[in-house]
């Protein structure tokens, strides 16, 4: 009742007006605040729209790289030498599994995973993110794949993952030429980054480490594809938005003939050595085999330390590619020295010297023995090759001098890379005055020139260089760079919806270097004729190994000393350590007219005999395989004389 009069005297109109004014001010405030909110929204949604749209997209869109399929490698007849085989592994995504421990234990029991491995797995499970697949077991056997497939419904979140892995069906037969791929390591990764290729290798696990796989890495690899996926905040893929298919790598077709490789392996079995066969018409390498070899597949899966240690410590050094390692060429280079002599004019085909069984420089006590104790008697160019007469070449090299020899031999590619398409090639050594000065800081001695004359001293040549030099010889100076790859098959980007691909085959152009031009072209024929005689003439050094062949072969033997013998010391294989035993060499080509194949053989530390008994038969097996039943008759008139020197070795 107290309040009642107070209300009565209040000025309601004034109060109402005051309140209305204040309400209006409040409404103004509300409108201003709403404008502030609007301008903030405008700022975010219109002014900064692109920025936030980009950030929204980068939140949800991930570009997953898709590895291209590596190009396949075929031999000249289309036999697959390097393929991509699916390898199965069992993987699991922890996020999708209710009872992880139980699942792992049961899968392990099913597939026989050891407790030790399970322990490791649990350890890694703890540290990894829950939605990323984790490998339980890799390289499953067919049986394990089948076993798991049948039971898969029991294990949600566990699945079989198939990946393509490189596989070399011929294993050790092709390792030294093809090389192998293996896991990209830190060094590879740094190199890829330096070359700006890391984007292209985002999804790639393996990289060519050796041989053709390394040389043609870029082309075999192809171009990475991309899968554009939408992910949620857990990183789980919700859907694929876009797919840019990868471009598969180029397939390579080699000039190599896998059957020749097989023969090469068989012929060298139990020996250390190498065989190189080249088609002199285009420089294509027909065979390239180094024995012993090793299985490149071991490296693809990551070789165990134990196995690698074995390969490294093996006395036979299988890791070394002997086709591109230097050996003393020995007598195999005599035809090239003869050519140098003819070209220089110090000899003619008719020039005869007398070989008493030794060679002695004027004013020097030291006698250099011929391999034939009592000498070859009178020797001309052809006979010098047929009989591999050392005294003839001591004399010739003495007359020529080291510089003339070195210059000519460099033209034939000695001491230089041939340019074959693998990186492991060795230059070997073509000694010269300059070389010795640079290498040893010593003057050149005439005695060393004489050794060079029979392909010894410092001179080393790789079997590949020897094959190439003979190739140049049979091509009469034309130099065709040897190569393993004959053709490449390019695939266009493959449409994600179809498996059809369009492809183009491009042949590799023959790479030629400037030819060797002689003053007199007939000199080529004199030397080639001598090589022909070496195989065709009865009693010549190469005759025996080629009795009964039908493809008109020519060749030259060689036996290189690896031990330094004192003067007058007689070499006796039975008392010499194995690593000091002679190397056997042989170079051959066939047919004599229009040659199709050049072969170089090197065999280390043969027990008895030299090139003629050890290396020549190996070369013959290659040639026999190459020509098969083909019969080639020489148009050249039969030799006028039949040599009956009664020798069987150089």
């Amino acid at each position, binding site marked *: 009742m107290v*309040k009642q009069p*107070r209300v009565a005297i*209040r*000025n309601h109109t*004034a*109060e*109402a007006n*005051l*309140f*209305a004014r*204040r*309400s209006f001010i*409040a*409404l103004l405030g*509300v*409108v201003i*605040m*709403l404008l*502030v*909110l*609007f301008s*903030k*929204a*405008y700022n*975010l*949604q*219109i002014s*900064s*729209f692109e*920025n*936030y*749209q980009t*950030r*929204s*997209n980068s*939140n*949800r869109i991930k570009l997953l790289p898709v590895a291209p399929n590596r190009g396949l490698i075929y031999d000249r007849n289309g036999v697959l030498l390097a393929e991509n085989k699916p390898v199965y592994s069992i993987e699991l995504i922890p996020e999708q599994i209710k009872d992880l421990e139980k699942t792992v234990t049961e899968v392990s029991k099913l597939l026989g995973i050891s407790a030790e491995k399970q322990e490791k797995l649990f350890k890694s499970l703890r540290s990894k993110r829950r939605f990323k697949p984790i490998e339980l077991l890799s390289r499953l056997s067919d049986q394990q794949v089948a076993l798991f497939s049948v039971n898969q419904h029991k294990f949600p979140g566990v699945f079989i993952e198939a990946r393509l892995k490189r596989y070399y069906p011929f294993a050790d037969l092709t390792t030294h030429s093809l090389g192998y791929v293996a896991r990209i390591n830190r060094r590879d990764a740094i190199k890829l980054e330096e070359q700006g290729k890391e984007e292209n290798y985002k999804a790639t696990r393996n990289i060519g480490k050796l041989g053709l796989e390394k040389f043609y890495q870029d082309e075999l690899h192809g171009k990475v594809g991309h899968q554009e996926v*939408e*992910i*949620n*905040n*857990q990183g789980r893929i*919700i859907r694929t938005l876009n797919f840019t298919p990868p471009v598969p790598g180029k397939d390579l077709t080699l000039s190599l003939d896998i059957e020749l490789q097989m023969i090469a392996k068989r012929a060298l079995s139990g020996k250390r050595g190498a065989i190189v066969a080249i088609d002199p018409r285009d420089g294509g390498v027909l065979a390239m085999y180094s024995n012993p070899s090793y299985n490149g597949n071991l490296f693809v899966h990551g070789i165990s330390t134990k196995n690698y240690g074995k390969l490294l410590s093996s006395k036979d050094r299988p890791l070394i590619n002997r086709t591109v390692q230097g050996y003393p060429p020995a007598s195999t280079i005599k035809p090239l020295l003869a050519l140098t002599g003819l070209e220089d004019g110090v000899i003619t085909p008719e020039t005869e010297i007398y070989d008493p069984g030794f060679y002695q420089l004027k004013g020097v006590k030291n006698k250099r023995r011929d391999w034939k104790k009592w000498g070859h008697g009178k020797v001309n160019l052809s006979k010098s090759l047929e009989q591999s007469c050392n005294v003839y070449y001591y004399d010739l090299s003495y007359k020529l001098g080291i510089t003339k020899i070195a210059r000519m031999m460099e033209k034939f590619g000695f001491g230089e890379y041939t340019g074959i398409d693998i990186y492991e090639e060795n230059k070997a050594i073509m000694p010269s005055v300059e070389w010795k000065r640079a290498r040893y800081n010593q003057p050149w001695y005439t005695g060393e020139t004489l050794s060079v004359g029979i392909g010894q001293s410092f001179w080393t040549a790789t079997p590949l260089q020897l094959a190439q030099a003979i190739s140049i010889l049979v091509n009469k100076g034309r130099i065709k760079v040897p190569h393993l790859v004959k053709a490449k098959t390019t695939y266009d980007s493959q449409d994600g919806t179809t498996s059809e691909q369009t492809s183009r085959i491009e042949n590799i152009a023959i790479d030629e270097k400037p030819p060797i031009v002689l003053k007199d072209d007939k000199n080529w024929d004199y030397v080639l004729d001598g090589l022909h005689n070496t195989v065709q003439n009865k009693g010549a050094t190469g005759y025996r190994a080629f009795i009964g062949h039908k493809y008109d072969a020519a060749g030259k033997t060689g036996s290189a000393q690896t031990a330094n013998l004192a003067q007058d010391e007689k070499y006796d294989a039975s008392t010499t350590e194995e690593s000091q035993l002679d190397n056997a060499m042989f170079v051959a080509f066939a047919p004599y007219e229009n040659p199709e194949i050049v072969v170089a053989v090197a065999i280390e530390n043969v027990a008895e005999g030299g090139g003629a008994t050890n290396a020549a038969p190996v070369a013959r097996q290659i040639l026999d395989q190459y020509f098969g039943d083909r019969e080639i008759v020489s148009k050249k008139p039969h030799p006028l004389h039949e040599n009956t020197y009664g020798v069987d070795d150089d």
Partner: protein
Amino acid sequence: MRSHKHDQQAQRSFWQMLHIDMPLLIGLMCLIILGGFIVYSASGGDSATVIRHIKRLSIAFVAMFIIAQIPPLVWRKWAVPMYIVGIGLLVAVLAFGHVGKGAQRWLNLGFVSFQPSEIMKLIVPITIAWFISQYDLPTKFKHIIIAFLMVIVPTLLIAKQPDLGTSLLIASSGVFVIFLAGASWKLIGGCAVLGSAFAPVLWMFLMKDYQKQRVLTFLNPEQDPLGSGYHIIQSKIAIGSGGLNGKGWMQGTQSQLEFLPERHTDFIFAVFSEEFGLVGVTLLLVVYLAIVMRGLWIAVNAQHAFTKLLAGSITLTFFVYVFVNIGMVSGLLPVVGVPLPLVSYGGTSMVTLMAGFGILMAIGTHRRFIM
């Protein structure tokens, strides 16, 4: 003409009989329908969530309808006892309340647990309006001081729980009454100065570490993009990437792919902006403005100082929800747990809000009965 006018009058009186203010109801329905759709989208198409949301809405609507039937001046009568009980409950919460989400807000009465701070959202403006309407307007200085004290006590008690959002809403509901009652501008200016002087004290003595962190994060969210800044960065990305027209309903990648936290509750505005763009945002703001205008219209037309002040305070406090929520989600204000009224997935606050609108409707429709 006459009969037509008479019909209109009759129709209006039908709604008035039900004590429903139609324009206000339409505005609220707009928000509620919109909210239903967005909750559905934000929950990733989970109809169970939407059904729960609708259930709570129904309870809130019933509460509004019942309260609308109560003559508004009844609240004035009960203001003092309600205030005293409310303060008592707040003290009880601090003493016996149980802890949820790191704050002590709930009081368990055995059969039901509730947040006394929610009831205080209505009790404080009722009490202040009662107090001030006893005297002539404009209010005298000493009365203003008393009113302030009456606001500060519950505000501090709630801030202590700690519940910054609610204490902010309660403080403003009281302050709005004082402002609408015609507090002099000098006083308002003085308070503003005093308030800013109080800020460092607040920072050093009253704010908890997590609250300080929120302020720091607000000032520079990019400093810790995966930690405390994550919410606000993802929210801004959601809003910004909506652009002018939005990504479309159920098409917001930030929300559908779960980059956005608290999608269907406090951050639902980000979902809405992402999916409906600036066009949708503008429409939403217009709806809120319409509701505020209708609320102020009711206040201005109320016939008693108490109802005027109460209606004005309820309306403006409703807008504080809107401003604080959108401001925080768009990075304009620090993160404070305030829902977007009638759009966010319903919680206790929705019932309080609708009860407030019930009072507003009562004020709008009971005006004939002067006590």
